[in-house]
C-alpha cells in the first residue's frame, strides 16, 4: 500500500499546487494543442494531460483523506477576498471520478475521433476537450461561487462545440447543440443570478464564507436567500439534467461524436450534480427550514418521475444512444433522490451512484461507440448478432449493462442498494417502489440491446460490426472490470462517498469500515 502511495502521490512541488495544476495543466496544454501538427500528436497531448490530471487528482484525494481539507488560495489572497480552491472529501471523489473518466475517454478517443472528425479540426477538437476537462475540474475544485460559474461557462462552451461537431458530421448535432446552448445558457444565467442573490444577502462569494454568514445571521428566513437557492437549484439542475430540465441531453448525447458522448455522460452531469450537492449541503444547510420542503415536495418527486418517465422513454427508443441517454436522465434521478433525502446516507448513496454511473455509462457508451467505428450503427436493430463478431466489445457492454440494471455483484446494484437504505431510513416507501420499477425498466431497455447483440440473428446486408481496437477495448474493459470490482468490494468509492458526506454534513457515519 505504501509503495502504491509512493507511486501515486506527487512530489511536493507538484502536490503543493495540485489543485490549480488540475485546472491550468489542461488549459495551457489545451491552448498549446491548437498548434499541434497533427491530430495524433494532439491526442498524445490530450492523453498526457488527462493522465497528469488523474495523477494530481489521486494525489490530491490522498492528501485530503489524510488532512481533511486542502485549501489553495489563488494569487495568494486569502478568502474571502481572493478565490479559493477548497477540496474536502466531497470534492476529492468528484475530482477523481472526473479525471479518471477523462483519462479513460481520452484513451478511447483516438479511433473514434479519426473516424468522425475532419482531419484539420482534430487538434482544436482536443483543445476543446481539454478545456472542457479543465472546466469540469474547476467546477468541482473551486470554493468560490462565482468562480464556479466561470468554470461552468468554460466547460459549457467547450461542451457545446464538442457536441456540435457531431458524430460522423451528423447535421442533427447542430440543432442538438443549439438547444443545449440555449438551455445551458439559461441554466448558467440562473445560476449566476442565484449567486448574485446570495452575494446580495451575504456580501461574499466564497462558499464556505457564505455558509458561515448564512448560519451566523440565520439568513434562512431571508427570502433573498430563498430566491437565490431557487435559481441555483434550477440552474444547476438544468446542467445536471434534472427532470424535466433534461431535454437538451438526449439529442446532445445521441448526436455528439461518440467520444464526446462517452466523456460527457460520465463527467458533465456528474460535475453539475456535485455542484448541486455542494450548494445544497455545504453552502446551504439541510437544517434550513425551507430546504426540507423543497427536497420533499420538489426534488424527490421530480427525481422519482425522472426515474420512471425517462426509463419508460428509454424503453421505447430505437436509437441505442438515446436509450442510454434517457437512462442517464433516469440515473440522475437516482442521484437526486439520494440528495433529496437530505441525510448523510442519502448523500452517500447519491455520490456513490454518481461514481458508479460514470463507470457504467462510460463503458456502455464506449461499447456502443466502438461498435460504430466501422459502420454507422446506432439503431438497436443494427446490433443484431453483433456479439458474435465483436465478442469482447459486447461482453464489456453486457457487464456494464448488468451494472446499470443493478444486478447483484455489480457496482450498480450496491449503489441502488445504498439508495434504497437511505430512502427507507426516511420512511419513503414509494421511493423504494420507484427504484424497483425503474430497475425493472432498465432490465428492459438494456436487455433489448443485449438481446439484439447476443441473441438476435444478423440481418442480411446489415452494417458490419468489427471488434474494436485495443485502445478502445482497454478503457472499456477497465471500466467494465471496475463495475465488477466495486460490486464486490466497494470500499474505495463508497468510503470516499461516505467521507464526503461526513465532511459536508459533519456527522460521523458508521455505515462501513472502509471510510478510513
Amino acid at each position, binding site marked *: 500500500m505504501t509503495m502504491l502511495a509512493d507511486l501515486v502521490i506527487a512530489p511536493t512541488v507538484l502536490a503543493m499546487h495540485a489543485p490549480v495544476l488540475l485546472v491550468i495543466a489542461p488549459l495551457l496544454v489545451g491552448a498549446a494543442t491548437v498548434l499541434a501538427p497533427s491530430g495524433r500528436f494532439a491526442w498524445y497531448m490530450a492523453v498526457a494531460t488527462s493522465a497528469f490530471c488523474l495523477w494530481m487528482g489521486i494525489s490530491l484525494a490522498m492528501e485530503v483523506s489524510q488532512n481533511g481539507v486542502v485549501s489553495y488560495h489563488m494569487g495568494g489572497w486569502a478568502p474571502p477576498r481572493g478565490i479559493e480552491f477548497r477540496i474536502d472529501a466531497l470534492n476529492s471523489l468528484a475530482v477523481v471520478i472526473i479525471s479518471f473518466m477523462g483519462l479513460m475517454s481520452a484513451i478511447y478517443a483516438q479511433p473514434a475521433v479519426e473516424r468522425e472528425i475532419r482531419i484539420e479540426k482534430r487538434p482544436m477538437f482536443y483543445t476543446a476537450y481539454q478545456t472542457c476537462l479543465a472546466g469540469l475540474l474547476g467546477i468541482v475544485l473551486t470554493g468560490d461561487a462565482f*468562480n464556479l460559474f466561470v468554470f461552468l461557462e468554460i466547460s459549457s462552451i467547450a461542451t457545446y462545440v464538442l457536441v456540435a461537431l457531431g458524430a460522423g458530421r451528423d447535421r442533427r448535432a447542430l440543432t442538438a447543440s443549439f438547444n443545449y446552448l440555449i438551455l445551458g445558457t439559461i441554466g448558467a444565467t440562473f445560476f449566476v443570478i442565484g449567486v448574485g442573490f446570495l452575494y446580495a444577502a451575504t456580501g461574499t462569494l466564497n462558499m464556505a464564507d457564505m455558509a458561515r454568514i448564512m448560519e451566523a445571521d440565520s439568513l434562512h428566513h431571508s427570502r433573498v436567500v430563498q430566491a437565490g437557492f431557487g435559481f441555483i437549484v434550477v440552474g444547476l439542475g438544468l446542467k445536471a439534467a434534472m427532470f424535466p430540465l433534461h431535454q437538451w441531453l438526449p439529442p446532445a448525447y445521441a448526436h455528439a461524436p461518440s467520444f464526446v458522448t462517452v466523456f460527457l455522460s460520465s463527467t458533465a452531469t456528474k460535475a453539475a450534480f456535485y455542484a448541486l450537492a455542494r450548494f445544497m449541503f455545504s453552502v446551504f444547510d439541510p437544517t434550513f427550514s425551507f430546504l426540507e420542503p423543497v427536497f420533499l415536495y420538489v426534488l424527490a418527486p421530480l427525481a422519482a418521475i425522472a426515474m420512471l418517465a425517462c426509463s419508460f422513454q428509454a424503453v421505447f427508443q430505437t436509437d441505442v444512444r438515446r436509450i442510454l441517454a434517457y437512462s442517464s436522465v433516469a440515473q440522475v434521478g437516482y442521484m437526486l433522490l439520494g440528495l433529496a433525502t437530505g441525510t448523510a446516507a442519502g448523500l452517500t448513496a447519491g455520490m456513490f451512484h454518481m461514481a458508479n454511473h460514470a463507470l457504467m455509462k462510460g463503458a456502455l457508451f464506449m461499447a456502443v461507440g466502438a461498435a460504430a467505428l466501422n459502420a454507422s450503427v446506432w439503431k438497436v436493430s443494427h446490433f443484431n448478432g453483433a456479439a458474435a463478431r465483436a465478442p469482447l466489445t459486447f461482453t464489456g457492454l453486457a457487464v456494464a449493462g448488468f451494472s446499470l440494471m443493478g444486478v447483484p455483484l455489480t457496482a450498480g446494484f450496491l449503489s441502488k442498494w445504498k439508495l434504497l437504505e437511505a430512502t427507507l431510513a426516511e420512511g419513503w416507501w414509494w421511493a423504494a417502489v420507484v427504484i424497483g420499477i425503474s430497475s425493472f425498466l432498465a432490465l428492459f431497455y438494456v436487455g433489448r440491446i443485449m438481446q439484439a447483440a447476443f441473441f438476435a440473428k444478423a440481418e442480411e446486408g446489415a452494417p458490419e460490426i468489427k471488434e474494436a481496437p485495443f485502445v478502445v477495448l482497454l478503457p472499456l474493459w477497465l471500466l467494465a472490470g471496475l463495475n465488477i470490482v466495486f460490486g464486490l468490494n466497494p470500499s474505495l468509492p463508497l468510503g470516499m462517498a461516505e467521507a464526503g458526506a461526513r465532511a459536508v454534513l459533519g456527522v460521523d457515519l458508521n455505515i462501513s469500515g472502509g471510510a478510513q
Partner: protein
Amino acid sequence: MEEQFVPSVLIANIALMSMLGVITIAIIRMTSLFGIVMLSGVYSLVSAAWFQAMDAVDVSFTEAAVGAGISTALYLGAMLLTVRKAKPTKGILKRWAPLLVVIGTGSALLYASVDLPAFGSLDSPVNTGVGMQYMEVSPKEVGTPNVVTAVLASYRGFDTFGETVVVFIAGVAVILLIGFGERALAASNWRGREDDDAQGDDSHLILRVVSKLLIPLIVLYAFYVHFHGEYSPGGGFQAGVIFAVAIMLYSLIFGLKAAMTAFPPVWARVGAAMGVAIYGLVGVICMLNGGRFLDYDYIFGPPSGEAHGHHNWPQITGIIGVEVGVVVAVACVMITAFYAFAGRTPEIRDEDW
C-alpha cells in the same frame, strides 16, 4: 456618505429602464433580423448609459464596447449567412400557459426581492462584506488606483483567467464550427479581382480616407485603454475588443483579403492561444518563484518584504502582464470570429449593409 434621495438620478433611471423595456418588446415583435441586431446594439448602449447612471463605469464601458460594439458587428457578420427575416410567431396572448408561468414565477421573485437590501445601502452585506475590504485594503495591497482593476486582475485574477479561457474557447468553437476563414481567402480568385475593382470604386473613397485616419487612432486608443486600465475604467477586454474592431473596420473598408494579409488568420488563431498562455504563464511564473498561482508578489521572486512606497510594482507588473494576455486573446478571438463569419460569405453586397 449619507443615503440620499436624488431625484435626477431616479428620473434618469426610470427613463432608461423604460427605454430598455420598450426596446425589448420591440425586439420581440420584430421579424427583420437586421432591425433586431440594430436594436440589440441600441439596447446595449442604453444599458451602458444606465450602468453609468449607477456609477458602474467599468461595466458601462465594457457593455458599450462589447455589447454595442463588437457584438453588433459579429451579429451582422453572422446574419449575412442567413435570411433577413424571422418567421412570424404566434401572438403572445395566445400562448397563455407560458405567460401564466412567467407571471407566477415573476411574482414569486418580486415577493422574494422585497427582502433585498436597498440599493446603495451602506449596511447592506455587499457594502459591508468583501466589497468594503477591497476598498480598504486594495490601495495598500495592490496599489492600483482603480479598485475594479485590482479586484479583477489580482484578487479575482483567476476568474479573469477563466473569462479569458471562455473567450478563447469561444474562438475555438467558432473555428471548429464555422471554419478558419482561410478557405474563402485561399479558394477565391474572383475575390481578389473584385477587391481590385473595389479599390477603384469611388463610392468608398471618403470612407477609406477617414478610416485610414481613424484606424491607427483606434488601435492607439486600444493600447491606452489597456495600459491605463489600472487608473481608469478599462482593461484588457475592452482594449482587445477595440483593437479587433480596428481590424474589422479595415476589413470592411478594404476587403477581407487585405485585412487577412495585414493580419493573417493564423496569427489570430495562434494569438488566441498565446493570450491564454501569457495569462497562464504569468501565474506559473509566480508558482515557480514559490508563490501561489497568480500571486504577483512572487513575480520577481519571493517578496522582499520591504515597503513599496506608492506603487506596488510586482502587483502592477503582474496585472499588466495578465492584461496583455487578455488583450491578445480577446482581440485575436474577435478577429478570428469575424474572419470565420466573413470568410464564409461569398460577398458582401452594398445593399446588404
